[in-house]
């Protein structure tokens, strides 16, 4: 009895914080999503409008293009984060001169504040004076309208985010690689396994339990990454055609004060992410192992 009470007392502060900063805002957000809370209703109190916001969102013609763009954004970014991160981790896992320096240099993108990195990259995408087009010019290639064409603007944001995100996967993969017992590779070598076979049958399977949660985290972070798209494309330019779901919602809430609508959109995004996470978790079948 006494143990239970002590347990509850220990848990209480954490539980209170969780209720205050997670559960209550979540429930409150759902409540807002069922109202017409906006600029003109906030002062005198919003009215309950049921599922009207949700119905509007689902009938919004742009919803599906934003969703598709968000899925492309997430898939491309996470794919390159993992591939580049694991490849660099494999290289850094071998002993060579200056390894510590390379490791430190490769972590720099992760250490830089996203705000500064995104604005610097935006500068590098300038049509006439940006580093990319100057480089293309040196190679005799035509300049690319990075920021003024919707597909190029979206590509520019993806390039920036790939650069920003691969070090996280690299660090996770490096930790995973270092925890694989060397004896397994030695045994495989004695059995005559090639480098590819060792990678295929030892490294990748043993790295999977470490990488799976990182991929899920990376997917959620990338899906919800507002800063990079917002700053590189300057709020969805050109013509609001480079938005992903979260940047669109941010604009609806904070530029147009459509709080009820944005809250409903937030719930929709949450449901999409929850579904994706659940599927990913089930498919990777590592939930219980981690």
């Amino acid at each position, binding site marked *: 009895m*006494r143990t239970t*009470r*002590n347990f509850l*007392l*220990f848990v*209480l*502060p954490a539980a*209170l*914080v969780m209720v*205050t900063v997670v559960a209550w805002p979540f429930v409150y957000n759902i409540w807002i999503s069922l109202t*017409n809370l*906006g*600029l*003109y209703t*906030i*002062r005198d109190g919003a009215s309950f409008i049921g599922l009207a916001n949700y119905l509007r969102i689902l009938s919004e013609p742009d919803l599906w293009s934003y969703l598709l763009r968000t899925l492309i954004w997430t898939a491309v970014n996470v794919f390159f984060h993992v591939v580049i991160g694991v490849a660099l981790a494999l290289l850094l896992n071998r002993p060579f001169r200056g390894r510590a320096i390379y490791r430190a240099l490769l972590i720099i993108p992760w250490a830089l504040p996203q705000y500064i990195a995104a604005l610097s990259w935006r*500068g590098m995408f*300038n*049509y*006439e*004076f940006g580093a990319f087009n100057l480089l293309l010019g040196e190679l005799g290639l035509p300049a690319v*309208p990075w*920021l*003024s*064409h919707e597909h190029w603007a979206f590509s520019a944001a993806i390039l920036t985010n790939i650069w920003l995100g691969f070090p996280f996967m690299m660090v996770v993969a490096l930790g995973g690689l270092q925890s694989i017992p060397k004896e397994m590779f030695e045994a495989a070598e004695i059995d005559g396994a090639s480098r590819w076979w060792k990678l295929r049958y030892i490294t990748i399977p043993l790295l999977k339990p470490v990488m799976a949660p990182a991929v899920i985290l990376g997917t959620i972070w990338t899906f919800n990454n507002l800063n990079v798209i917002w700053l590189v494309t*300057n709020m969805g*330019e*050109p*013509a*609001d055609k480079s938005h992903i779901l979260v940047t669109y919602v941010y604009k609806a809430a*904070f*530029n*147009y*004060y*459509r709080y009820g*609508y944005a809250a409903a959109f937030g719930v929709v995004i949450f449901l999409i992410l929850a579904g994706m996470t659940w599927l990913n978790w089930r498919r990777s079948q590592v939930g219980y192992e981690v």
Partner: protein
Amino acid sequence: MRPRLAAISFSLCACVLISCAPGDDPLRLSVWEQMDPAQQKVLYRQLREFEQLHPGVRVETNHFETEKLRTQFQTAALAGSGPDLVYGPADQVGPFSIMGLIEPLEKYVSPESLAVFTEASLGTLEGHVYALADQVGNHLTLVYNRSYVDSPPDNTDAWLAQLQELTVDEDGDGKIDRYGLVMNLLEPFWFVPWLGGFGGWVMDENGAPTLDTPAITAAMRFMRELVLLGVVPASCDYPLADTLFMQGRAAYIINGPWSWQSYREGGIEIGLAPLPRVSETGRWPSPMTSPLGYSLNVHVPEARRELVLELLGFLTSAERVGEVSRELSALPSRHDVAQWPMIAGDPVLKASWDQLEKGRPMPVVPEMRVIWDVLRPAYQQVLAGTMDPEEAGPWMQNQALKMIEEMRR
């Protein structure tokens, strides 16, 4: 053991709750601002002076970028907290007042005290004064580098011809080394003066958008011509324009009062002139003007309201407004300061007045945000050549009406 555990638990809970509670210390004031570093320096000095005059009082400041300030203040004030005073351009008065986040100041400031401010400097909406300004203007002006330009032409035909002469490839490598003009081509704030020059405006007096007009088409065509002539770098944004002008790689820049001091400090001998009259219409371009000032949070506790109002009076007193004007080349918000010989006789301020007189006040209604958001993509597409100037007007008007309706729903 148990009482100790309970005490620790509840202390932690209390800490969490206390940290969430709004401060009501009567001697601790707070100001949130979006000033540039030069103006911040002046403000900090003024606040220290205020503290010296009021022993025991501390004024804390928090800096945000303009957009961030708006969202942060909204969030804080909606939750019943936030700073005592919030400083920014007049366009934030619209949403803040509609949401009931700032106080009408005529409740606290006497009509005699309000009368010292110029009409253009009061952040007024529907007859209520919601902000007291320390400067007025925020308007775009033609700034020129005296090394390249003696006196700017006063009409666009002559100006365009001059810009072409001033755009040069000095080393003959096929790349432009010096541009005639640099300006932010991404933000419609830089387009609006020309819209005025062609006889149009963004809204009518009822706040309804007026974006589908022949004036819009003509102004868009004019801006497109500037880009096609190659006298301004394509896709030129604010940092690029500022850098090129600072490096002496542009003869003209269109920029506002916040930038002039930095050009002078950067060793560029600048001159100011009104944007040239549009030859086609004979009208002067009309940049948007707006005051920059302080608004009072509705949640200021009774216990320190008087002190906060005293701080507001101090920051908008003749001496402080004069300091801001003198040190930042900003136009004063008060009639009395405008008469000071050092202000009235300053050639930069005089040129700024000339431009201000040709400008029009920026509408402070929240729908202005929609106007910016529909103008921006259309303007950028016209400049990029992916939309015809003729298509822009109908598209913007439809979008604006739709978005305003959604905003009001």
